[in-house]
């Protein structure tokens, strides 16, 4: 979720978008001075039902069962 937050706050310098056949998009963000690259996959980008999905499968990210 950190990458998606950085996308919405504009806290990056470089962004690459790769649209996927299922309509989702893989986004890569980087910022100079930070030794990190954020790569994540989003379905319905910038829509009200925007959702980060599994980068490999495009399916919803499974929540951990903490019980």
């Amino acid at each position, binding site marked *: 979720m950190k990458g998606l937050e950085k*996308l*919405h*706050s*504009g*806290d*990056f*310098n*470089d*962004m*690459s*978008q*790769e*649209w996927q056949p299922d309509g989702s*998009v893989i986004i890569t963000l980087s*910022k*100079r*001075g930070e030794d990190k690259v954020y790569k994540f996959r989003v379905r319905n*980008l*910038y829509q009200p039902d925007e959702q980060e999905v599994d980068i490999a499968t495009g399916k919803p990210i499974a929540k951990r069962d903490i019980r």
Partner: protein
Amino acid sequence: MADYPDYTSLMQIIGSDIMVPIDVQAAYIMMPIDIQAQYVTLEIDIIAQSVGNIAIDIAAQTLGNIAVNIAASAVTLNVSIASIAGGVTFNIGTVSGTVNVAIQSSAVTLNIAIQSSAVTLNVNITNTTINVSGSVTATISGTVSINITAQNVGVYLQPEWAAKTGVDKNFLASTTNVAFGSGIYGDYTVATGKTLYICGFSCDNFAYNQADADSNQMCCVYLTDMTTDVRLAEIGGNGGAGMVLSKPIAIPSGHQFRYRVTNRANHYTSLGITVWGYEV
């Protein structure tokens, strides 16, 4: 007390607590006063049509307030202040002439607030290093002449400055094996409270299959503000296209910006688009 032939009176007073009121009403008086005391209260009220030189030499180690109120129509006042640890405050109401201030000190803090409708301010700074912290806002309606004779001065345009300060933005989108009429796009919604300025863009388009490598690789680019549905720029080309904007395109906060490149060749291609600018 003794009388002298020329009517000069010598007065010697020795006491621990003495008050001597003196009222002299004469046409011509010479009255040298030598006060050597630890505590002196000296009230002098001079009402004269013309006053010559008044030389005051104060050699005290500590000095309280000196209130000077000069209500003359023309006054020449030369003040030489060697050092005052507590600072100096000048409150000048109206000056029609010239005020020359020469400060020769190794360390000076100078706060200047000028609230005037017309000010001519000549500033000549010969210091080797000047540091300005905080923001400086200048609203100038006239002409600003800048003469820089320094050997090392950097003046940056906004896009260059944005890249130096890390607020520049670079967008890229690419795909492969795209049929005629299809393409790729990227979306970005401008961050809250900021404005995105687009300075340029470029794209490339090349054949996906080797058999089409020598054919025309037509493509076109569209930059669109999706919030207002206004197309901001477009360009076409064969194998690619690009443009550096002399005037940046501004996209307001919260608007969705879309950059798109479309394959216009009659075969499958791979294509990509890059857009650069800054967000402040």
